[in-house]
């Protein structure tokens, strides 16, 4: 019924989707799986009218459709239940369901609330939840809001002649098991009204709910099968694609870390995020932190750079107890941070490369503490050469660089500041394969030079391939520790067992 034909989409040089074909039948639940960055979200956004494809087309019942906006998608019967919920919490449930559609209920410029709430009630009945449409959304639980989102998507039925397609973008990631069961029951019951596209990280859920499954990897569809004819291990194998190729992560260059301890956590805690985390980080060691969203690993990473101050336990840098309450304190202790949000937290995009490289350690001269601009230029040129940053000059603005080169500028900033502990927060996010390999190479270089590294990576593969040791977290607790020296690397399954 709805088909995606030969769709490609690229962002700033990274091919997010490459010749993707997907077919969604009537009254069917289609599952979509893939690792982070495989292109699932991009595909969903194209279906929802948020992005338009560079090449290829969408067809509804065989006729091409162009979705210029989410509204266009709605009018063609495509609704979405977002991963980050889209409800406005300061409005009532009824107002949310008909947000943007108030005209239907307006007379003489005034909204007829009674009629709007009655209509909203009908939508809520479809998902069998007993919520008063007059309730303020902020008073609802997260699970209840998810149901309201679903009701909102179903309200499209009355606006379009088309058969409905509802996109569920990781709807379960924030729900408890009981609520997941309820959601799944509703989706099954609603299959006679609509088709669903279901995206989730959890393969068992996908198998449970879907009729057919598409597997994506690196922007392509690499597999397509009936849910009954496959299994979790098979899906997993397809998602990862190939067997982990050791040299991809430069494992032959992995050396044992030095004796010297540079970072030590004992009982480190942040209220509401994680508790009692212990670890030691040696000079030259790469320590990976694995865990799903909500495991506390993101907060732990950010504690180490002073974004999220610790509320308990001790943190020692070079043997001295510290409590970091701002990034500047961490930087003063010789800690550097390569953020996940490269374009907002990593670089000042509208300033030149040289300025960004010296932001953490300005070359000040002897004359009244003035910046030496010639020295700055020299330093920047040296880093551009050393890290092989592709740019015509050190005065080029960072916004004109490719993702990989931008990441190298961020790295140069901390190397220039002589950081001896580096926190890598998803360092390869949004980079293409070639740029990723360069980042791996640089991590090995740094490790050889004695820099200690804490890594939260996008994929388990990356974590296993790059790290000396791995900390696995679940629900704010450390659930396992692995030695990951070459030849003794744990498998992904070993890690996952402790993650979920």
């Amino acid at each position, binding site marked *: 019924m709805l088909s995606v034909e030969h769709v490609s989409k690229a962002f700033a040089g990274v091919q997010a989707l490459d010749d993707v074909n997907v077919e969604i039948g009537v009254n069917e639940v289609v599952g979509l799986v893939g690792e982070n960055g495989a292109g699932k979200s991009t595909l969903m956004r194209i279906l929802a009218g948020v992005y338009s494809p560079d090449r290829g087309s969408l067809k509804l019942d065989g006729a091409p459709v162009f979705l210029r906006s989410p509204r266009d998608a709605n009018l063609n019967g495509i609704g979405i239940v977002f991963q980050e919920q889209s409800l406005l919490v300061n409005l009532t449930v009824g107002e949310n369901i008909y947000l943007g559609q108030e005209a239907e209920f307006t007379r003489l410029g005034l909204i007829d609330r009674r009629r709007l709430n009655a209509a909203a009630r009908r939508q809520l009945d479809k998902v069998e939840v007993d919520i008063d449409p007059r309730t303020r959304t902020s008073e609802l639980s997260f699970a209840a809001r998810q149901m309201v989102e679903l009701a909102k998507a179903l309200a499209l039925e009355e606006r379009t002649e088309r058969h409905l397609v509802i996109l569920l973008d990781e709807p379960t990631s924030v729900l408890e098991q009981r609520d997941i069961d309820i959601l799944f029951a509703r989706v099954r019951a609603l299959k006679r009204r609509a088709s669903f596209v279901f995206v989730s990280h959890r393969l068992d859920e996908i198998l449970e709910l879907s009729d057919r499954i598409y597997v994506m990897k690196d922007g392509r569809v690499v597999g397509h099968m009936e849910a009954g004819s496959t299994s979790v291990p098979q899906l997993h194998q397809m998602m990862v694609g190939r067997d982990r190729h050791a040299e991809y992560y430069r494992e032959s260059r992995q050396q044992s870390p030095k004796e010297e301890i540079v970072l030590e956590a004992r009982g480190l805690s942040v209220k509401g995020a994680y508790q009692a985390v212990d670890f030691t980080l040696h000079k030259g060691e790469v320590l990976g932190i694995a865990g799903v969203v909500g495991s506390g690993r993101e907060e732990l990473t950010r504690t180490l750079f002073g974004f999220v101050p610790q509320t308990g336990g001790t943190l020692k840098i070079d043997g001295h107890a510290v409590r970091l309450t701002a990034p500047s304190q961490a930087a003063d202790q010789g800690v550097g941070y390569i953020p996940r949000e490269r374009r907002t937290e990593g670089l000042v995009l509208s300033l030149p490369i040289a300025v960004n490289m010296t932001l953490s350690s300005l070359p000040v001269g002897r004359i*009244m503490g003035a910046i030496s601009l010639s020295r700055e230029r020299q330093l920047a040129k040296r880093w551009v050469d050393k890290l092989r940053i592709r740019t015509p000059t050190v005065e080029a603005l960072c916004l004109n660089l490719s993702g990989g080169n931008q990441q190298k500028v961020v790295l140069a900033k901390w190397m220039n500041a002589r950081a001896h502990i580096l926190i890598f927060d998803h360092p390869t996010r949004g980079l293409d394969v070639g740029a990723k390999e360069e980042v791996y190479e640089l991590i090995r270089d740094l490790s050889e030079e004695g820099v200690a590294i804490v890594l939260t990576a996008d994929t388990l593969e990356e974590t296993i391939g790059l790290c000396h040791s791995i900390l696995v977290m679940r629900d704010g607790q450390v659930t396992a520790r692995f030695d990951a020296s070459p030849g003794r690397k744990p498998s992904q399954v070993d890690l996952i067992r402790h993650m979920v």
Partner: protein
Amino acid sequence: MTETKESGVIRRKNAFGTKMQLAETVFRFSSNRRNLRNLRLTNSEFKISGMTSNQIITKSLLTDGTVRAAIPILLLLGLVILIGALQPSFLTVDTLLVVMADTATLFILAAGITFVVMLGGIDLSIQAVASLSSVIVAVSLSRFGYWAFPATLLVGFITGAFSGGVHVWLRIPSFIVTLATSGLVAAAALLLSQERSITIGESGRVYLNWITGRPFGIPSVILIGALVACVGIWLQRYTPFGRYSTAIGAGEAATWASGVKVNRQKVIAYSLSAGLASLAGILLAGRLSSGSPTLANELLLPAIAAVVVGGTSITGGAGGIGRTVVGALIISVVRVGMTFVGVDIFAQQIVFGVVLILAVAVTIDRTKILIVK
């Protein structure tokens, strides 16, 4: 400003090894490569085009940074020539010195705001601080002599530090904080002056020679203005404070995450802003031999207009005091021109309001703010 042109061809490969892109780039450098501000603008035209199609990005004259940076200077020259053509006596040395002397206080106020605007904030309290300063000088000059000046400046710095401190520690938008400070300071000025303007007596005037004098035939306020400009440009270009301010204005999150003490830079900027406002108030008191709680009230709008007309972005991160010099001169020349044409002095505020809106509309970088509030 001389220019050299270079052109280069960049080839890149995409993730799947296909040769995707030929991006032709044309870029220029100003001869003064050290000049960070110029580099920002001249390099903005250097682009590697997107990887999805083989389009070649060419630059247009309007987006050319060099041209855009030169607009305020060309505007100033145009206005001077225009008024000179209508009234030839305008182009005499004496008249120009008078115009520059009149510009000096406006420039000093505008220079102060420039520090704040550079990092993305705004200071609406400067006119009140300047008025209060004129009152303090008028009240205390005959009793304390020269000590009245540093004491007044200190009051200025303290009000600025107060605004900056409240802004960063309580996390309140700067326009609210400085608006409130403006109220506090204006009330203090009214109380101190007992709601009257205070004439500086004969005993006090002897201390005002450094303001009213004319060394080498040049009014000393011009020299003071020039000194402020030089120190200001040096601060912005060569000190960590100036560098961090630019970076905060252009990308606060990244600057913070680079370990820069962002709050400290902000407090310094607000202190400098109010400190310079205080200096402007002292100069006004000196030139008029009196202090008044409403002395500088009409100067807020022209001062902000001067900053923006000069080419400093209202959202921060681009611009500087050098540009504010040009902006303040433009405002002054426009004012002279209006008086010449016969526009009522109070109606001139209408023009400054319109000029401010137009200047912001032309210079604002809308990619940086998704939602305007």
